[in-house]
């Protein structure tokens, strides 16, 4: 659906790498070109009309994000460079001053590097303990398993809403409820979730949420850090500089601005933020529920077809998102990706930045097909036809 909105889809290309980044609709590209062409001034410097327009557009995106994730206050929306920066700010700016040696943080082995490495560093630095919520046979997080590992020392649960290899949708609302009953904070890596289904931070009751624009039809280099206002007030800026300070005279007299500006030092990615606003409007117009249903239907169609192929081993048959991860018997995943590339099909091969997942799944590298709403049943037919001929794969993979 909506394929006509994407310039690239006019070409003979089948794009199945949407978990890495999504394609961009023309309205987003035009919006950014409009900024660079017609009002390319800086934000928050509004002494003249052009700059005032920048402020208006930039802040409109904040309003759009607030509404999109149903945040309570505008100040809870901070623009960052993406999920990675948001998560690093949460770990380094909020939890580093708060946690003490012996405190526990719960993760899972299927997290992306961005939700593992900042915690690893904090563990090395402060002696906090990292534990993993055990995954069930489908590599899911269950409330029962979570209950088994929460201890009085647990202070944080930091997990993805949807993981980028298994594609399982975590029971975030139930996790938050259990966490808060135990005075535990919840950090949600929303990189794979926010683009694909309705995320309501008030309903879920998450404490922090991180996500990126570029996986949801927006530009690269823009993301969001959401935090409950009362928590965000205590997040120490990890970047200091222009735009975020009120005044300063000497090291003991530094006065910072209010939220969210305090956490947006320097000139931000203005064209990106403005383009992101357009992407949100675009997704809202289609409807997040429609997007989720479309991906679900396409995934089921693909899984049903792949199950008929004996030489395909699907890692995540059961999960509900648009991510399908598999291997072709005795063929290295990268060779499968190169083979499909010969037919203009873009898929991802590798460990997908989830390097400790192999300890749970027992497989190092996989082929990943990740679907978005603009993919079609015909594209899946093409993919499956190419995958169905094992001899052809072997013959053409080099």
């Amino acid at each position, binding site marked *: 659906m909506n394929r006509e909105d994407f310039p690239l889809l006019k070409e003979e290309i089948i794009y199945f790498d949407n978990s890495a980044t999504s394609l961009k609709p023309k309205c987003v590209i035009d919006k950014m070109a409009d900024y660079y062409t017609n009002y390319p001034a800086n934000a928050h410097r509004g002494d003249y009309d052009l700059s005032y327009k920048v402020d208006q557009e930039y802040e409109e995106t904040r309003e759009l994000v607030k509404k999109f994730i149903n945040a309570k206050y505008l100040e809870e929306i901070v623009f960052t460079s993406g999920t990675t920066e948001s998560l690093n700010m949460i770990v380094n700016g909020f939890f580093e001053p708060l946690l003490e040696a012996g405190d526990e943080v719960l993760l899972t082995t299927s997290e992306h590097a961005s939700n593992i490495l900042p915690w690893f560093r904090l563990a090395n630095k402060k002696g906090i303990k990292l534990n993993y919520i055990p995954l069930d046979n489908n590599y899911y997080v269950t409330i029962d398993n979570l209950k088994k590992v929460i201890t009085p020392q647990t202070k944080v649960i930091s997990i993805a809403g949807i993981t980028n290899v298994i594609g399982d949708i975590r029971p975030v609302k139930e996790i938050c409820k259990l966490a808060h009953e135990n005075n535990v904070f919840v950090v949600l890596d929303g990189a794979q979730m926010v683009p694909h289904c309705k995320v309501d931070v008030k309903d879920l009751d998450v404490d922090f949420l991180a996500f990126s624009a570029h996986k949801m039809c927006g530009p690269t280099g823009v993301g969001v850090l959401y935090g409950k206002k009362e928590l965000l007030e205590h997040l120490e800026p990890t970047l200091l500089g222009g735009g975020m300070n009120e005044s300063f005279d000497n090291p003991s007299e530094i006065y910072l601005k209010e939220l969210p500006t305090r956490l947006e030092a320097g000139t931000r990615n203005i064209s990106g933020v403005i383009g992101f606003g357009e992407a949100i409007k675009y997704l809202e117009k289609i409807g997040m529920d429609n997007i989720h249903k479309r991906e679900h239907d396409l995934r089921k169609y693909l899984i049903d077809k792949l199950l008929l192929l004996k030489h395909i081993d699907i890692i995540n048959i059961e999960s509900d998102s648009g991510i399908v991860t598999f291997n072709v018997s005795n063929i*290295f*995943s*990268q*060779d499968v990706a*190169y083979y499909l590339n010969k037919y203009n099909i873009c898929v991802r*091969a*590798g*460990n997908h930045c989830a390097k400790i997942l192999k300890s749970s799944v027992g497989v*190092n*590298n996989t082929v990943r097909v990740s679907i978005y709403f603009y993919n079609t049943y015909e594209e899946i037919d093409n993919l499956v036809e190419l995958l169905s001929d094992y001899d052809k794969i*072997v013959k053409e*993979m*080099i």
Partner: protein
Amino acid sequence: MNTEESRQIIMENYLNPQNRNHPHDGYQEVNTRNVSCIDNINLYIKWNNNKIEDITFEGEACAVSISSTSIMIKNLIGKTKEEALEYIHEFYKMTNGKTFNKEMLQDACCYEEISKQGNRKVCANLPLKGMEKAILEKLK
């Protein structure tokens, strides 16, 4: 070498690679991997003074990297450090689309066409990069 001949050499070396095993003691170990892909190979080299007496390897990699490792092993055993470096540089010339010494590279010429596929060039070069690193370490 025509495309079919090249393909055959690559497939033979991929399916039955030379010396894919963990060696006994006394081998120099070097890891080689690409930042942009997932190929990950350990090379083990046994030296007899200045000469390469044996090379084995372990690891997980694509058909091009595995076959390239196998061919490199066959071609480098018995060579001196200097001869091996010369071979490696001729290989790079080939994968960069430049004129190279076909006689020296022998069946490694099967990767001649790979210079046209930027994303697979790194796979073919991978074991050579590892071997180059190992030799330079020894020359220090």
